[in-house]
């Protein structure tokens, strides 16, 4: 008779379970934790891929000049401008420059009522500058946002680096984009004061919602619904690699397609891109181990744990977190400048951002195809929470299938004429 249908043997089973209950619990828990950590091991997770067919990422060639002289010039100008007064942000300069380009540029004032009533009703005020580039042949029903936080030089620390290169880049790109006829969505250039607070004030005014402690003035102009936002933190110097910040409020993340898009565009420009500063050492891309060595595992594990840590804190890692509140997919691209050996000048960054926007331009719907909750052990590997139960059951088969799928995808890509990396 069967183990569970027979009364006697069932009783036996229950007795065994009760006797060793605590030990079993402890062992299962430990096994679970170890299993979870093992997910960072490359054969156990999956390679990233694009789910949204409309994106056509990186297919179109850049239309920027090979030496982006206007960006370099703006870069010099902004460096001079911020040196004048290190305590303030160059609002007036930005406003003037965007007006000169010929875009609709406006200011938005906001005030923050300090919530902790230790000091009697402290109110801080700030100013956002935003500029709207209208798509000539489209009806302004949708928009994309390029957001740059404004930080006075005195406030710059390692976690909140300087962003002046981004201002120059935005100006140069705005000038280039304005000349092109192929924008199907409006592009909004947003320069926010006080990082997340200014962004939230602007977003609240845009969507006509209210926050408890932030009061912003009404916007003089707006566009359609925002489909995606890129937050840019670029220093004025040359960049060695790009660090992506994904975590938003309460652990929200942007759609994985957007992350994959940014990674692919960076790779197209032969730039290094990392998540949580975990640089993929160049030699590993050509080694035979394919990410199965102990070093790789340690790196993947630390990246994954750092991502979980940031998510657990609930605080956003950049301005992009505020966009997640309104279901707008957003992430932050941080350019990391080191003392020597950096070759990614502002032209490379400009081409990456242009490529991202050209691809986002192709979108017809909001991002909905790919995952919203995932863990990234590396920029090209992902671990989706929906897949974890499956993994538990079919560990070996899944990893083999993934390998075959990756090979097949590579074969398909190369056959379709896609320039694989």
């Amino acid at each position, binding site marked *: 008779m069967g183990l569970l249908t027979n009364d006697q043997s069932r009783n036996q089973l229950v007795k065994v379970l009760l006797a060793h209950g605590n030990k079993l619990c402890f062992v299962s828990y430990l096994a679970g934790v170890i299993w979870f950590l093992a997910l960072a091991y490359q054969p156990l997770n999956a390679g990233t891929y694009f789910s949204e067919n409309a994106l056509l990422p990186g297919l179109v060639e850049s239309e920027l000049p090979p030496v982006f002289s206007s960006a370099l010039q703006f870069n010099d100008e902004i460096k001079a401008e911020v040196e004048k007064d290190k305590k303030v942000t160059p609002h007036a300069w930005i406003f003037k420059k965007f007006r000169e380009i010929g875009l609709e540029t406006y200011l938005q004032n906001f005030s923050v009522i300090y919530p902790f009533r230790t000091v009697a009703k402290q109110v801080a005020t700030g100013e956002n500058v935003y500029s709207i580039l209208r798509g000539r042949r489209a009806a302004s029903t949708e928009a994309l946002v390029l957001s740059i936080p404004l930080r006075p030089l005195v406030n710059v620390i390692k976690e909140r680096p300087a962003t002046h290169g981004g201002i120059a880049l935005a100006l140069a790109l705005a000038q280039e984009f304005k000349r092109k006829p192929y*924008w199907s969505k409006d592009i909004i250039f947003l320069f926010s004061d006080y990082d997340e607070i200014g962004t939230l004030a602007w977003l609240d005014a845009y969507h006509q919602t209210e926050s408890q402690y932030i009061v912003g003035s009404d916007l003089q102009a707006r566009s359609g619904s925002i489909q995606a936002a890129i937050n840019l933190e670029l220093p004025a110097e040359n960049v060695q690699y790009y660090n992506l910040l994904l975590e938003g409020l309460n652990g929200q993340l942007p759609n994985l397609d957007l992350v994959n898009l940014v990674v692919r565009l960076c790779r197209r420009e032969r730039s290094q891109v990392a998540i949580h500063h975990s640089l993929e050492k160049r030699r590993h891309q050509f080694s035979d181990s394919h990410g199965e060595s102990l070093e790789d595992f340690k790196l993947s594990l630390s990246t994954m744990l750092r991502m979980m840590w940031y998510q657990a804190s609930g605080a956003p890692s950049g301005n992009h977190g505020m966009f997640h509140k309104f279901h707008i997919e957003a992430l932050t691209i941080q350019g990391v400048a080191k003392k020597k050996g950096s070759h990614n000048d502002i032209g490379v960054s400009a081409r990456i951002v242009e490529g991202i926007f050209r691809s986002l331009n192709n979108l017809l719907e909001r991002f909905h195809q790919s995952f919203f909750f995932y863990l990234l052990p590396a920029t090209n590997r992902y671990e989706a929470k929906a897949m974890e139960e499956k993994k538990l059951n079919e560990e070996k088969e899944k990893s083999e299938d993934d390998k075959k799928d990756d090979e097949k995808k590579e074969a398909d890509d190369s056959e379709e004429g896609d320039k694989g990396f």
Partner: protein
Amino acid sequence: MGNTGQNHNIGIALIHMITCFVILYLSFNPAGCMSHEEQVNEFFQTGHTNNWAVLVDASRFWFNYRHHANVLSLYRSVKRLGIPDSQIILMVADDMACNPRNPRPATVFNNQNQHINVYGDDVEVDYRGYEVTVENFIRVLTGRLPESTPRSKRLLSDERSNVLVYMTGHGGDGFLKFQDAEEVSNVELADAFEQMWQKQRYHELFFMIDTCQAESMFQKFYSPNILAVASSRVGEDSLSHHVDPALGVYVIDRYTYYALEFLESVKLGSKKTMAQFFKVCPKHLCISTVSTRTDLFRRDVSQTLLTDFFGSVRNVELLTETSSLAKVNTSSRSGSDTCSKDSCKGTDRKPGRFSYPEQVPSILI
């Protein structure tokens, strides 16, 4: 005086003789030595008198640019080979040329070098935008259109028409996706073609399809005189050919690219056959396997001219003698005649070569 007169007469006689010889020689010229009968018969060999084309692009959106380019390139080829716009039904979503994402507005290119704008000034789209639906497609084929439909949207073919049906888009095993919202299945399509046969709306039909798993679409055909070619087998994907980096899209599919290359070498009087056309994209070029269906077709494929379907050849033959043509009996079709009130007992139909078929069989009335 008499001598010159005689000479003159001899001269004239000589000229007459020479002229006679020349005429006799010419009339017995081996080049024109084909018998009269043969000349006349060759003229009526194909059996069709007019050509129609139904070109369908079943997908829309910017990333499906290549389907658009496919169908417009074929439209250009078919027009070049002589089928006029009045006999072409072009069903395409037409959202490429004026798409805000198009870096070259008002154009559609089928090649990276951007030499030919297949959209041009004179493209006539009959069903555009959201009119490209399965219902409209089936109605066009079967002729069941509302009274108010203009002539340009009707397929006014008769039993001596050769019809070319070309479809492209996204397909699967047994279906073709129409505009992201609906599908047409292979069974539906086979039934539509059978309706066409019953109503004598085609003499011969050539079905060409370039989608993924395209073979499945012609597997269910059962009407006679259909020739079909598909760009891929069931379980295979049809792949696109190349990207245009200036536009940022794939501009054409592989099978259509090579088919067009072949068609470009075809001129109006060309003797290229359908058998040659079927070999146009071998596996190393197309990656997918091109498959064909010839069992329903009565003629030999290697004797069928390409221009029977792709062009509209108006033959002109000059005869030196008169000939009388015998009346042809039209009841050569077996078992699928419509049955009218008068002739339901199997007697001969009305004499005469051309009779208007009944749109709704009288049995039902």
